[in-house]
């Protein structure tokens, strides 16, 4: 590993951390698509900045781009406020228009300079170490490292300073307003941070990767935990992990670093999506199946309680009467037996004392419309879940 490689990984990790923090809040505030909009619509800001300064590396560019980002947010909100279209439509209308303006400005005026759409959208991390910052003639490291480092420091500072306010206004905007925090101020603050992060990160990693780095780690973390602090931490870990593993993946494939970091993020999210405890796809499907069987069990027990005659309680009768398939009735019967709810005597099913008690309570809850209570009751009665 040479120093350029270390620097690339360092930049990628810093970008990942810087993106994960505002990204978490964007995901929680249901504004994830805003980051996509910002990342596209900063283009005209950059182009205008370039016309003014004629220098791709001037800080004015970042400032102007951030302003364009905020203009996007404001425009989206104003269009939405008129009530003519919904929020997502407003986003979808604003950013392509701004992006088009940017593209046209480039095409008309800046055709011969190093500023093309691909560079803006895709970025190239591999060249980042070659663009170095010199202070008083000494080489202090790649420029984008400093830019993103500064942005990260500011973001972290703001996060620690306003963590409580952000937390409250994210989860309960009404409470935050009544406590005297200005929701608008926090909203625009967050938007500004997002814009600045997007801008600072994009020339290193490209607009699309910024969006991926903002949303994917936060979304994956959200599937695992509901605690805000843990979520932030997890998002950061996910981001850094995919940044570094993505770099080596790209190294091995000899392909775009940004693309492979995104791919790693995608894989990471896919794994979390499938296997996350309690929120993942498999867990959800397992729970749904369990619920189905337990509902069947309840139906079955109620049936038993209502019918005393022997032929109604015959094992074979289940198949025809409650319209279950054989496998299903077997599962339900087994579960009921395991939980000591029923006895099977000579193929005649009857409720045990415990089964009877359970069923009566369940009926009570159903009659009084408190079906939710049945869930708690299951914990008391069941030895085995479905």
């Amino acid at each position: 590993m040479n120093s350029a490689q270390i620097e690339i990984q360092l930049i990628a990790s810093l970008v990942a951390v810087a993106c994960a923090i505002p990204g978490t809040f964007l995901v929680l505030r249901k504004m994830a698509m805003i980051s996509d909009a910002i990342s596209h619509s900063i283009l005209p800001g950059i182009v205008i900045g370039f016309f003014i300064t004629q220098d791709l590396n001037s800080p004015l560019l970042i400032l102007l781009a951030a302003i364009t980002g905020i203009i996007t947010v404001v425009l989206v909100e104003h269009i939405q406020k008129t009530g003519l279209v919904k929020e997502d439509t407003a986003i979808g209308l604003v950013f392509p228009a701004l992006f088009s303006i940017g593209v046209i400005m480039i095409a008309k005026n800046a055709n011969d300079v190093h500023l093309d759409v691909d560079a803006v959208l895709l970025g190239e991390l591999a060249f980042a170490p070659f663009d170095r910052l010199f202070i008083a003639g000494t080489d202090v490291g790649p420029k984008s490292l400093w830019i993103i480092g500064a942005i990260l420091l500011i973001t972290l500072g703001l996060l620690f300073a306003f963590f409580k306010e952000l937390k409250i206004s994210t989860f309960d905007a009404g409470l935050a307003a009544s406590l005297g925090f200005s929701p608008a101020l926090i909203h625009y603050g967050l938007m500004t941070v997002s814009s600045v992060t997007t801008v600072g990160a994009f020339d290193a990693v490209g607009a699309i990767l910024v969006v991926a780095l903002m949303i994917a780690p936060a979304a994956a973390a959200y599937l695992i935990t509901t605690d805000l602090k843990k979520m932030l931490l997890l998002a950061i870990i996910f981001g850094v992990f995919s940044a570094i593993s993505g770099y080596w993946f790209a190294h091995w494939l000899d392909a775009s670093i940004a693309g492979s970091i995104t791919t790693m993020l995608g894989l990471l999210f896919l794994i979390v999506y499938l296997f996350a405890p309690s929120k993942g796809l498999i867990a959800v499907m397992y729970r749904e199946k369990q619920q189905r069987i337990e509902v069947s069990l309840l139906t079955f027990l109620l049936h038993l309680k209502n019918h005393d005659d022997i032929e109604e309680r015959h094992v074979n009768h289940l198949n025809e009467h409650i319209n279950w398939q054989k496998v299903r009735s077997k599962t339900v019967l087994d579960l009921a037996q395991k939980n000591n709810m029923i006895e099977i005597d000579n193929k005649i099913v009857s409720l045990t004392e415990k089964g009877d008690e359970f069923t009566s309570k369940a009926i009570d809850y159903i009659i009084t419309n408190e079906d939710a209570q049945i869930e708690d009751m299951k914990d008391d009665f069941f030895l085995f879940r479905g």
Partner: protein
Amino acid sequence: MLGSFAVLRKQSLLGDAISHAALPGIAIAFLITGAKDSNTLLLGALVSGLLGTFWIRGIITKTHLKSDTALGLILSLFFGFGMLLLTFIQKQPNANQAGLDKYLFGQAATLVESDVWLMAIVTGLCLLVLFLFWKEFKILLFDKDYAKTLGFNTKTIDILITSFIVLAIVLGLQTVGVVLMSAMLLAPAAAARQWTNSLSKMVLLAAIFGAFSGVFGTAISASQNNLSTGPVIVIVASVFVVVSFIFSPSRGLLFRQIRFIANRRDLEQQKTLAFMYHIAETHEDISHPHTIKILNNFQGFTRKTLQKLVDKDYVTIDGTMWSLTQKGFEKAANLYNQQHKTDE
């Protein structure tokens, strides 16, 4: 046209997501076939676009992540993966790869006759399906539960609409490119929505708006050099949207503002009249003159409202004094009653 459905179904950003999600499909199709035949590439785009759509749907229904997160996630992840594949392809010893990135930003000029025919056929197909399933689409759109109770297979119809949206997007990619596709889908529909409340009219209008922005955009971009077609089309479409927002007769901002001002004037006039009535009530003679000075802004008094009241013959003015006429008194009394009635 299909955009109308997307807008009404609150899936506006789906277009954006799908157009990005189509990229890996194009790249994979190229990797497999090694040729740049536009049909196979489109097929790949279609498959990966559909895959993206259904994954988005899966995320929304199976987890507690919201739709915006799911969209942004799929969009960026698929696109990033596509970029990885594209850069990977570029390193391959195959000279054929140039031009794949045309799909990114679109180039209407590169279209050849067969592409146009393909588009025409697909458009015709869309129209046909739209006509055949018009009723089903409409019900599903506005009242999903009702459609279910009527026995329609909502899932199939849903998949049908989504597939057609994806198809339309994938086709459009060649013309305007990934980034601007969502605007092509949305802008005409959003503009059309402002002019009508009827679905059929809206779809028709959206088609017209879309066609117009296409034609105008191409014309403008052809008239000047160095202007790419896609962005110009999008800007023209955006202009349509802005104009619709402002000037649409029933929903537009301009007319709403005018109505708002008119309402406020009416209200102020009524307030002045009511105030006069309360003063006149305390006098034996309802037409007893009072000075204008006692009317103030709090009662909604302006010189204009007073003049209007005079024009309506409710009030007479004599120098700096005003007095209610009989007609004005009755009107004010009734006004009060009516307000009470509506209050109750």
